[in-house]
């Protein structure tokens, strides 16, 4: 067994960490407070090459492995969840499906701009009445001559309403399968298509500097060739996309846990009470020891899943495990970190306050912790 990462991975981590510390950390608190998506940081992230990391150079991606993408996401999440969300959603949910399921013309048309970070693509799966039960999609796509006619709505869609959103991949019901279940198909809807409207959702607890939207389709007509992959492949594509997406959410949990730990360790080494740094009181030292241990386990699990993906092994079970574990580790770490900060940890002046809020999404988005446990239970054949 060899646990070492390549030198490129090390250089990548250092560079992204440096970038995150200098370009994102100083503005993250204010963007969170104002609930604002920043085009300045978006451009800076694009300049660094954080979009299209696993896409081949042919389509202007970086041609890196999945591990690189995960390390980059982890390092951005170490300073801010919202920015990591923008990257994870753009890559896993926007660029990913276009790259893996798009035909040559679609890839040529959409990927170069998306990989340069000039455009963002969103993935519309969740609906008001189909969340965990995403297969129960109500949005319909009906072929009428040379056009698909789409009706329905989507909710909580990341990157759906930025100024640079180019469009959205919409999971729709295109008919009924022989077994009576809905036949699901993905359709590409470009921004500006008549009948398609996107509205920004405000008032979020977390990821406040990430764009979240509601999408409405009212007799929205798109050309027949806007089909992503074959008819009826939507459900399969969704599962594949979510496997990759789960790794990026796990990376956000891991990075967030690491960030919270780093802050907690520094603070508790500096904070003096009863004449001593509070880190030296055993109850606190043990919290830090537990955090460090769990982070190490989380990293091993996630990196193993990435390694399997890079080596073309099936990752369904490990992706679900990594997503579940990393997000819950972050939950315990932010809880400890705020506790170690005492009253100050409850104030916005301390970034740990934001981490405490940002964490919660990770136990809900891209399959709740319960859904991950359902997936794992099935894959270990418990049920």
């Amino acid at each position: 067994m060899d646990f070492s990462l390549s030198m490129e991975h090390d250089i990548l981590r250092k560079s992204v960490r440096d970038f995150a510390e200098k370009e994102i950390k100083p503005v993250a608190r204010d963007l969170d407070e104002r609930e604002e998506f920043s085009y300045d940081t978006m451009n800076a992230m694009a300049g660094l090459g954080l979009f299209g990391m696993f896409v081949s150079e042919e389509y202007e991606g970086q041609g890196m492995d999945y591990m690189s993408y995960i390390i980059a996401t982890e390092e951005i999440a170490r300073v801010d969840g919202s920015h990591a969300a923008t990257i994870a959603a753009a890559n896993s949910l926007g660029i990913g499906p276009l790259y893996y399921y798009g035909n040559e013309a679609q890839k040529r048309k959409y990927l170069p701009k998306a990989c340069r970070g000039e455009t963002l693509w969103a993935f519309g799966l969740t609906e008001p009445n189909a969340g965990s039960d995403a297969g129960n999609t109500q949005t319909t796509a009906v072929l009428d001559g040379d056009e698909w006619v789409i009706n329905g709505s989507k909710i909580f869609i990341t990157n759906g309403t930025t100024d640079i959103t180019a469009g959205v991949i919409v999971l729709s019901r295109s008919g009924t399968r022989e077994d009576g279940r809905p036949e699901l198909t993905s359709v590409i809807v470009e921004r500006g298509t008549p009948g398609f409207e996107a509205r920004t959702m405000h008032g979020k607890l977390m990821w406040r500097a990430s764009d979240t939207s509601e999408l409405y389709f009212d007799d929205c007509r798109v050309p027949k060739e806007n089909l992503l992959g074959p008819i009826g492949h939507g459900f399969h594509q969704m599962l594949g996309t979510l496997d990759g997406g789960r790794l990026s959410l796990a990376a956000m949990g891991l990075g967030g846990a690491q960030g919270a730990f780093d802050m907690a360790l520094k603070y508790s080494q500096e904070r003096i009470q009863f004449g001593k740094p509070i880190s030296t009181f055993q109850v606190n030292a043990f919290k830090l020891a537990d955090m460090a241990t769990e982070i190490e386990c989380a990293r091993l699990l996630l990196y193993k899943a990435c390694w399997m993906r890079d080596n073309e092994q099936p990752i369904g079970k490990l992706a679900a495990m990594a997503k579940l574990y990393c997000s819950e580790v972050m939950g315990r770490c932010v809880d400890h970190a705020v506790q170690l900060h005492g009253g100050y940890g409850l104030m916005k002046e301390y970034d740990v306050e934001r981490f405490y809020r940002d964490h919660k999404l990770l136990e809900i988005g891209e399959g709740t912790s319960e859904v991950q446990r359902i997936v794992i239970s099935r894959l270990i054949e418990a049920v």
Partner: protein
Amino acid sequence: MNFLVCLKQVPDTETQIKVAPDGMSIVTDNIKWVMNPYDEYAVEEALRLKEKFGGDVTIIGVGPKRLTESIRTALAMGADKGILVDDPSVTGSDSLGTARVLAAVIKDLDYDIILCGKQGVDDDYGLVGSGLAELLDIPQISIVLKLEVSEDGSSVKAHREVEGGTLVIEASLPALITAQKGLNEPRYASLPGIMKAKKKPFDVKTLADLDLDASEVGESGAKIKIMQITPPKEREAGKIVEGETPQEKAANLARLLHEEAKLI
């Protein structure tokens, strides 16, 4: 034009430095090594000059294998070639020894400007650049804040900050420049850059490749010897100057500076 950048690694400034039991070195076990910050300015300046005048940027490092990562980082930032001199007999070199190794590498290269950091933030000698310029017998301008190369590429004007003003110095090329903080804002190694760097030429050399005798470098070639390393004294708690009015506070401060700190 061709540009050479000399580069070393130093402990990350966040690392807690511990003195080794021998009292003459530091514990290196848990150190995170990074590119010397002043060398980053040197790399960036070379890249900007290349973008303006064309040519190649070659990165040269003397040190152990781990230095590869920093040289590769410079390649990922946009430099073209890397050369690492990795030879056990170089360990323990003083600044002159390092300069000798660099000079031996550089004498066979084609160059217009050599850039170094003004000092390494580890030992803080600030001597390698000067030593190298002397050995190559070329002009040197140190601690440079701004660099202007003439349109025809034959000379360079460098700005240095001196007490109360700026000194502008001109030199013919080839010349050696040492970089001061503020010379530029170094770029990040971008992801596409990291991928490209994988395919860039990278040579590893030993002393045998350089016609350099082991006695000229390492501890045997050193003109100085470290006798002792001691950690800095723990800082004492600060003092708040008492006084009801600003005038009273100022008078008390002056008295403290005179009587206690003995500064005035």
